[in-house]
Structures are given as structure tokens and as C-alpha cells.
């Protein structure tokens, strides 16, 4: 009768039945020959050889054996992991941390630095800029020079020009508040040169450019915000600067030229002054983009363009004598060296973390394998082949790797979502950071590397396993493994220390930058951007009367202490202008520091809180038409141009040449220097002129927190002109903080990475020592039974831990010193070999190591010798 079976007998069941049948028959024969039952069984077993070995030999001849076996190994591995939940959970967690963070950083690096720009053959795209030889800085290009460049050069397939303006105004319906957006005024070949198609409609045609048709191409962002992303927006009109423009197309979000903030494009010819521009050589408003011919390098093009520039210097010495040309690959322009370097550094840091995590997992795996020596020995004794055992251990590690990688991917997914909120907006292409195929590929690859590096240890142990000794004294063969394990721990400490050094350096750099005095009290200062359109404010008088009224009305608001305005409260990085000082060679000299000339309203310095050192502030009479020109200069400017003299009463003028009418401006005041760009950029020379220009940053000193006044200020401006778009409105300290976003991000990232690495290294050290104490229980028990001092035992374990920490730490310090020069350029006022930072980092690592070593040391000291010896 066949017994009821729940499943079909497997190949193994059948094999077992067959061999057992053989055995039973043999026993029966032996009994028939007269042997007693137990003796017959004993002899049968002896003569037939090991049952398990026979089975193995039979399995070996099965076709595709390994596939079935692999599945079985994985099942077995999972089962044995289930028994050891804590171990499995720790390995999974650590792998997930290592892989998850690495994948996240890789996604950032990939999106921002590695991925090519989303244009046709992006490597061929370069920017051409005019370069001022004396000032050694870039400048805009005149249309006449551009045309000469284009006709004379052979290196370029095509060349186009554009202009960025930030004063364009879009007013949409009555429901929407007017808004200021950035626009690109572009030449006819602009879109076709870049080679990116619109996602709806079409781009501007040559005919439209030549006829100066009022047409506009929208960015996807503007299209979605204003038109809800519907295609019938094409063909509608959009008022730009008070004039209706026909919407002809929409460019995708990934199209970021001239800048990421560009929201619309119009043909440059819509500007009233366009027709005359082509003949003007003495203007510097245009930016030039070129596409290199296939096979031409940027260097070759640069050599050719410099020759052309030299020719133009000879042909037009009066205007061009100071002009050269520079070629910058578009990619470099978009991404920038600092971003690239910062992100590579972040990636290197996360690789350090991954090394720590891998070494940690390696340590866990090898100590587990050591604990399982007996189990493995039993299996070898029962007939498991070594190869089989090694394969099985690899399968177990493989299962761990699968789980760990999956968890790592999940973590990366979360972190990338988090990053899209948390990463600084200043990071180029930040919105393209995504959890995508390359990220997954990297995760799988990293997991594989980690598994190969740290997963083979247990298998090697199995391969070298000495069965007899494994059954014998427990700890004799563990010396070699321990050495291996100790190196893994030292590696973790080394990698962690490098990260901690980096974190401390960046933290100090960030603290130093954010602790700089901007030169004015930045709290309780509100800045509002206003640009008056020509449509409502045709002349200077209208502009002046608007701003005067704005000063009065806002100044009367409760909570407002003073009001002023300046052309740009924060200037663009690299901004540089020239002044001419009487008695000095005209224009800017090569050795001169950077200088910015700004226009300010009466009361600006008082509102901003910039201390007046000498002389007087601007007064209302300085703003009257026909008033004699006056200047207020910064301390640094006064010292530069009139060292050791009194600056008051000196004569100067803005620009590169002395005044044609002989009307010099008089310096009437000297103010304290203040930081114009960001806290991490030293103040530059400043010259201030009294006037009311069209575009100003209103500067409002408040007696209450600045943010609370935003709504009231907005309301006052609305009350004066409903159609006037209000630009950015923010507190000064908020904007200062924002300008340090990248530094903050870098330093927080490193802090998190180094904290995780330090924790992992500490856990690794703790696990190693705890394991060794467990192995040496007997020895330690005997020692204390023989009267060893508890303190001596504590010292023994602690010394071991600190020795490892010192070895790992020294390697880490050497590594940190070696890479220090790479990060120097990313630090603010902090030497990359700053001894204090290294000391702090080393101390932190030693303290953590001492704690990690102290716990097992105390446990060793508390061992009860009697209990241990009885075991």
C-alpha cells in the first residue's frame, strides 16, 4: 500500500528509496547467510560505503544539477538566516545604508555632472565671450564684433547671439498678479543651433525675426503655471511689457538656455533699438553661443578666435584695443567647476562610507562563519563536499546581498525623494535628480562588489576548515581569522576617520563663512525688488516721484524704522566696474581690486545700517536735476586710491575715461565696507551715486521681524500701482543664508556620512572585541582565578581596541592628508591641513573607539571565574 503523500516524491526522495532498498536487500541477504540482525546492519553499512556520499555521487551525474542545487542552497541559506535574525537584520541594515547612500550620491552626481546636456551633440556647443585684457575678466559682446567673428571663423558650424534680461513683465488677466520673469531675447538661429525641439507649437522663424513680429515662446514651467499646460495656449496672446505677443510654442523644462530661470523667449528684433545695433561696435550687451564643426576641439577654435580678435584689435584700435575672446564649453558654463568638484568629493565620501559598511559586513560574516565551524565540520564529516559547502555559503551570502541591495534601493528611493526637497536650489540641474536605471545599475554592481569582497571570507574558511581541530579545542584555529577580522576593523576606522576629518573641515569652513560680519545688521532688514516698466513711467521724473512716494508710504508703516533703495543689494558674482580718479591713469588698472558702482536713494545707508565714517550722507539736494555730481565711497576704495590721504573732496567719475565736460564728481562721504555678494566673499570696493533708476532693491529697516511686514509692504506698493509686478521679497539674513546653501549642504552631508561611518566602525570594533572575549572566556577565567587583577583584564581588552583604533586612525590620517589638497579650494578661510581639525577628528575617533572597546572589556572583567571554569 502506498502511503498518502502530500507532494510528489522528489528526485532526492526516489534516490533515497532506491539506495535504502539496496541496503535492506543486502541486510536481508546477510541475515539469510546467518548473521544476527544488528551485526548484519553494521557490516552492510561498512561495505556499502557512506549513504550520503553515494547520494552526492548520484546527484553529481544529474543534468543541470547546479541550477536545482542553487535554488536549494538559497532556500537553505534563507532558512539558516531566519534562525539568526539579529545577524541578518544587522547585515541588511548596514548593506542598505552603504548601498542606499552611495546610490543616492551617484544619482546626484549623474544628474548634475555626468549626464550630457540635453541638446543635440552637446559637446560641440561652446560660449564665446569677449575678454577684457586689462581687467582680465569676461564681458558682453557687441553686435558688430559678433558679425565679424561669424564671418571670419572657420571652426564653427554656426554661431548665434542672445541677450538675457530680467525686466520683462508678464501681466495675465486681472486674477493674476503681475510678475517679473527672466527672458531670453534671441537671435534667429538660436533654437536650431542648440537643436532642441519644442514640446508644443514651434520655435521663432527667421521671417518673424526679420519682421520683428511680437511672438513669444514659453517655457514649460510658465506654460503649466499660466495656461495649465493646454495646447490651445498656442495661438493665444500674452502681454509682455504691456504689448500683446502671439504664443507660438513651448520649450521643454530641460531646455535651460540662457539660464534655468528663463521663462520665455522673444526675437531680439522686437527691441526698438535693434535695427541700429548691428553697426554698433562699442556696446557689450550680447552673449554668443557657437556650435563647433565636427572634429574641431575647443582649443583649436580658441586659437582661431584669438587670431580673429587680434585682427579686430588692429582694425578698430579705438574700441577693440582691450578686447580678446575666450571659449568656454557650454557644459563647463552650466555645471561649473565648484559644483563638479563638490559633488565628486561627496561621492568619494560616500564611497568611504561604503568601504566602512563593507568591511563591517565582512567582519560580521567571518565571525559568523567562525561560530559555525562546528556545524560546518559536522557537515563535512557527514559527506558534504567542500565545493558544495563553499557554494552553499556563497548562496547564503548571495541571499543576504539580494535582501541588502533591495533594502538599499528602497532607501535610495526615499533619500532621492527627500533630496528633491532638501538639496540647494542653487545646484544646477537639481530637478533632474531621479531614481532611474543608472542608479539601479550602480546599486546592483556595488552590491556585487561588496559581496565578492566580503562574502568570500566565510567560504574560504569553509574551504580551509580542519575538521579534526574544529571538533577539538574551540579557539585554536581562529588566530588567522582574527588577524583578517582585525584588518577589516582597522579599515573601517581608517575610512571613518577620513570622513570625520572632512566633516570637521567643512563644518569649520561653514561656521567661519556664516559667522562673517556682512558689515551691516542683517536681521530685521527686508529687501523688495521693484522694476518700473517704461509703459507707466516714461521718464526719470516719473520714476523718481514713484520711489519718493514709496519711501514715504512704506516709511509710515508701523514697525518700519527706515527706508532706502539701491540698484542691487546683492551683486552678481564676478561683477566688476571701473571708475576714473583724477590724477590717476584713466580706467581700471590690471592690479586694481574688483569694484562695483551702485546707485542709491537718500537714506539707503541709514536703512541698511551701513556706518558712515566720514563726511555726509546723500541729501535731497543731491537728487535734484542739475545738481553737482557727488560720490560716497567705501573705506577700501578710499584707501586704495588715496592712501594716507583724506578722501573727502577728491574728484572721480564712473567709467573708463575722464569726464568730457570736465565735470568731475566730488567725494562727499566714506562708508564702511560691506559684503556685497555673500558672506563667503570679501567686500569689494564700492562707489555710490545718488539717483533714482528704474530698477531698485527697496531696503526696509524694521523694528519687528522682517518677515511680518511683507504683506503690509506688498499692500502699500499695490495701492500705488496695481499693475506693477513685485519682484523678490525676502529678509536680508534669509538671503545671506541662502547664498551659503551649497556650503551648508556639503557640510551637513559630510556630517551625516561621517556619523554613520563612525557608528559602523564602532560597532565593528565592539563586535570584534566581544567575539574575542567570548573565545577567550576560559583563558580569562583561569587568569582571574589565578589572581589576575580585574583592571589588568580591562587593560588587556582596551589596549587591543585602542591599538586597532590607532593603526586604523593613522592610516586614515595619512589618507586625509593625501586628499587634503583636493578639497582646499572648497573651503572658506580654513587650511585643508588645519591641525586643530585633524586633532578634533582623531580625538573623536579615539573616544568612540574607547567606548566601543570599553564595553567588552568590562564584560571580560566581570567574568565569574568559577562559572567559566565549570562550563
Amino acid at each position: 500500500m502506498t502511503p498518502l503523500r502530500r507532494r510528489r516524491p522528489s528526485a532526492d526522495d526516489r534516490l533515497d528509496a532506491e539506495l535504502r532498498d539496496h541496503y535492506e536487500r543486502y541486510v536481508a541477504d546477510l541475515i539469510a547467510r546467518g548473521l544476527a540482525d544488528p551485526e548484519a546492519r553494521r557490516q552492510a553499512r561498512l561495505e556499502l560505503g557512506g549513504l550520503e556520499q553515494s547520494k552526492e555521487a548520484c546527484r553529481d551525474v544529474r543534468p543541470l544539477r547546479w541550477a536545482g542545487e542553487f535554488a536549494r542552497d538559497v532556500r537553505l541559506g534563507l532558512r539558516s538566516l531566519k534562525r539568526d535574525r539579529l545577524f541578518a537584520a544587522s547585515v541588511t541594515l548596514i548593506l542598505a545604508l552603504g548601498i542606499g547612500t552611495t546610490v543616492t550620491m551617484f544619482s546626484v552626481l549623474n544628474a548634475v555632472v555626468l549626464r550630457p546636456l540635453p541638446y543635440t551633440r552637446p559637446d560641440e556647443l561652446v560660449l564665446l565671450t569677449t575678454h577684457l585684457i586689462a581687467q582680465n575678466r569676461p564681458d558682453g559682446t557687441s553686435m558688430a564684433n559678433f558679425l565679424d567673428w561669424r564671418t571670419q571663423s572657420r571652426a564653427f558650424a554656426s554661431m548665434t547671439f542672445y541677450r538675457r534680461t530680467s525686466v520683462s513683465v508678464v501681466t495675465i488677466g486681472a486674477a493674476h498678479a503681475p510678475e517679473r520673469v527672466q527672458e531670453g531675447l534671441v537671435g534667429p538661429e538660436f533654437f536650431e543651433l542648440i537643436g532642441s525641439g519644442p514640446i508644443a507649437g514651434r520655435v521663432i522663424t527667421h521671417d518673424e525675426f526679420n519682421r520683428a513680429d511680437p511672438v513669444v515662446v514659453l517655457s514649460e514651467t510658465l506654460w503649466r503655471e499660466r495656461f495649465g499646460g493646454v495646447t490651445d495656449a498656442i495661438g493665444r496672446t500674452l502681454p509682455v511689457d504691456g504689448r500683446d505677443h502671439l504664443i507660438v510654442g513651448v520649450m521643454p523644462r530641460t531646455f535651460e538656455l540662457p539660464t534655468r530661470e528663463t521663462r520665455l523667449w522673444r526675437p531680439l528684433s522686437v527691441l526698438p533699438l535693434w535695427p541700429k545695433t548691428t553697426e554698433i561696435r562699442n556696446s557689450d550687451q550680447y552673449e554668443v553661443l557657437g556650435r563647433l564643426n565636427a572634429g574641431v576641439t575647443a582649443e583649436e577654435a580658441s586659437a582661431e578666435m584669438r587670431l580673429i580678435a587680434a585682427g579686430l584689435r588692429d582694425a578698430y584700435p579705438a574700441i577693440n584695443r582691450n578686447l580678446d575672446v575666450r571659449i568656454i564649453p557650454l557644459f563647463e558654463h552650466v555645471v561649473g567647476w565648484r559644483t563638479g568638484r563638490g559633488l565628486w568629493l561627496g561621492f568619494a565620501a560616500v564611497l568611504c562610507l561604503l568601504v566602512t559598511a563593507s568591511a563591517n559586513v565582512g567582519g560580521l560574516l567571518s565571525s559568523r562563519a567562525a561560530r559555525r565551524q562546528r556545524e560546518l565540520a559536522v557537515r563535512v564529516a557527514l559527506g558534504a563536499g567542500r565545493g558544495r559547502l563553499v557554494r552553499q555559503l556563497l548562496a547564503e551570502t548571495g541571499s543576504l546581498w539580494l535582501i541588502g541591495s533591495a533594502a538599499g534601493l528602497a532607501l535610495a528611493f526615499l533619500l532621492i525623494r527627500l533630496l528633491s526637497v532638501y538639496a540647494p536650489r542653487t545646484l544646477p540641474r537639481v530637478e533632474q535628480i531621479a531614481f532611474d536605471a543608472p542608479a539601479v545599475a550602480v546599486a546592483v554592481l556595488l552590491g556585487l562588489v561588496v559581496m565578492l569582497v566580503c562574502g568570500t571570507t566565510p567560504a574560504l574558511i569553509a574551504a580551509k576548515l580542519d575538521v579534526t581541530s574544529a571538533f577539538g579545542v574551540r579557539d585554536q584555529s581562529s588566530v588567522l581569522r582574527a588577524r583578517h577580522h582585525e584588518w577589516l576593523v582597522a579599515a573601517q576606522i581608517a575610512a571613518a576617520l577620513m570622513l570625520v576629518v572632512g566633516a570637521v573641515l567643512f563644518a569649520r569652513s561653514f561656521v567661519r563663512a556664516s559667522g562673517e560680519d556682512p558689515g551691516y545688521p542683517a536681521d530685521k532688514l527686508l529687501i523688495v525688488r521693484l522694476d518700473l516698466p517704461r509703459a507707466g513711467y516714461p521718464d526719470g521724473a516719473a520714476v523718481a516721484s514713484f520711489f519718493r512716494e514709496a519711501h514715504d508710504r512704506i516709511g509710515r508703516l508701523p514697525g518700519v524704522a527706515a527706508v532706502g533703495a539701491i540698484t542691487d543689494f546683492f551683486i552678481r558674482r564676478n561683477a566688476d566696474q571701473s571708475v576714473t580718479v583724477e590724477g590717476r591713469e584713466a580706467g581700471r588698472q590690471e592690479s586694481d581690486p574688483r569694484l562695483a558702482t551702485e546707485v542709491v536713494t537718500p537714506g539707503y545707508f541709514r536703512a541698511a545700517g551701513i556706518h558712515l565714517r566720514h563726511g555726509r550722507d546723500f541729501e535731497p539736494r543731491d537728487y535734484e536735476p542739475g545738481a553737482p555730481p557727488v560720490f560716497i565711497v567705501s573705506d577700501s576704495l578710499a584707501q586704495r586710491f588715496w592712501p594716507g590721504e583724506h578722501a573727502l573732496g577728491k574728484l572721480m567719475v564712473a567709467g573708463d575715461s575722464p569726464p568730457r565736460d570736465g565735470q568731475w564728481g566730488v567725494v562727499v562721504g566714506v562708508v564702511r565696507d560691506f559684503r556685497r555678494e555673500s558672506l563667503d566673499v570679501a567686500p569689494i570696493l564700492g562707489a555710490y551715486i545718488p539717483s533714482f533708476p528704474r530698477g531698485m532693491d527697496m531696503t526696509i529697516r524694521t523694528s519687528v521681524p522682517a518677515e511680518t511686514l511683507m504683506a503690509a509692504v506688498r499692500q502699500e506698493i499695490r495701492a500705488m500701482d496695481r499693475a506693477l509686478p513685485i519682484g523678490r521679497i525676502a529678509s536680508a539674513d534669509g538671503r545671506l543664508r541662502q547664498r551659503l546653501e551649497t556650503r551648508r549642504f556639503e557640510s551637513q552631508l559630510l556630517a551625516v556620512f561621517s556619523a554613520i561611518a563612525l557608528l559602523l566602525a564602532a560597532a565593528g570594533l565592539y563586535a570584534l572585541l566581544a567575539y574575542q572575549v567570548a573565545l577567550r572566556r576560559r583563558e580569562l577565567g583561569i587568569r582571574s582565578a589565578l589572581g589576575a587583577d580585574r583592571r589588568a583584564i580591562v587593560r588587556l581588552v582596551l589596549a587591543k581596541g585602542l591599538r586597532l583604533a590607532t593603526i586604523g586612525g593613522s592610516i586614515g590620517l595619512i589618507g586625509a592628508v593625501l586628499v587634503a589638497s583636493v578639497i582646499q579650494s572648497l573651503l572658506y578661510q580654513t587650511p585643508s591641513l588645519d591641525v586643530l581639525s585633524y586633532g578634533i577628528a582623531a580625538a573623536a575617533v579615539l573616544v568612540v573607539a574607547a567606548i566601543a572597546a570599553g564595553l567588552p572589556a568590562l564584560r571580560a572583567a566581570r567574568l565569574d571565574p568559577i562559572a567559566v571554569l565549570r562550563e
Partner: protein
Amino acid sequence: MPQPKSDLPQGTLDLLVLKVLALGPLHGYAIAQRLQQISRDVVQVTQGTLYPALHRLEHRGFLTAEWKMTDTGRDAKFYRLTRAGRAHMDREQASWLRLTNAIGAILKSAEGKTS
């Protein structure tokens, strides 16, 4: 007491197994018994060599197997020679005979020279 066992030359066990099965289906134990009987205890195979050989021949299609009730009332796995197995056996036997004849001839001629 069994006589000292001789090691079988590589590959000959397959031939012997096929030959024994040419007379009719048998189970593994019976095959071992038969080999031992016919060879007068010279050929003794252990489980560890017999069953891998049987399974290999089965996988290669030279044998088929089925579980059948035996006279003792226990299920046993009976192996039967297939047509391909018979052809294989004939080929192997011919080549074995050729080889042993050749070896025999060499041994004989060498004996002639030395004597």
C-alpha cells in the same frame, strides 16, 4: 571471504551493466549481485559507483527505469535496456574486444621475445 577486488578500467562498468541488463530488467541490487556472481566475486561494486553509473546511463537514454513490486513485496527500481542502449552496448563491446585483442597480441609477442 570475498577475494581481493580488482579495479575496473574506466568506462567498463557501463558496458558490464548494459550487458547484464541485456538479459532482462533488473533492480540495482540484483545487478550488483549478478556482476559479482558472474565474475566469481572479482567484480564487486559499491553503491557509490554502481548507482551513479546507472543514473548516468539513464540520463543518457540508454536505460529506462520504473518502480515495480518485487517478489519480496517491496518496491524496487527496475532498469531496462533501451534500443539506444543496446546499440551503445554493441559498439562498446566491439571496441572493447578490439582493444583487448590488441593488448593480448602485444602481451603475447612480448612474451615470445623474452622467452
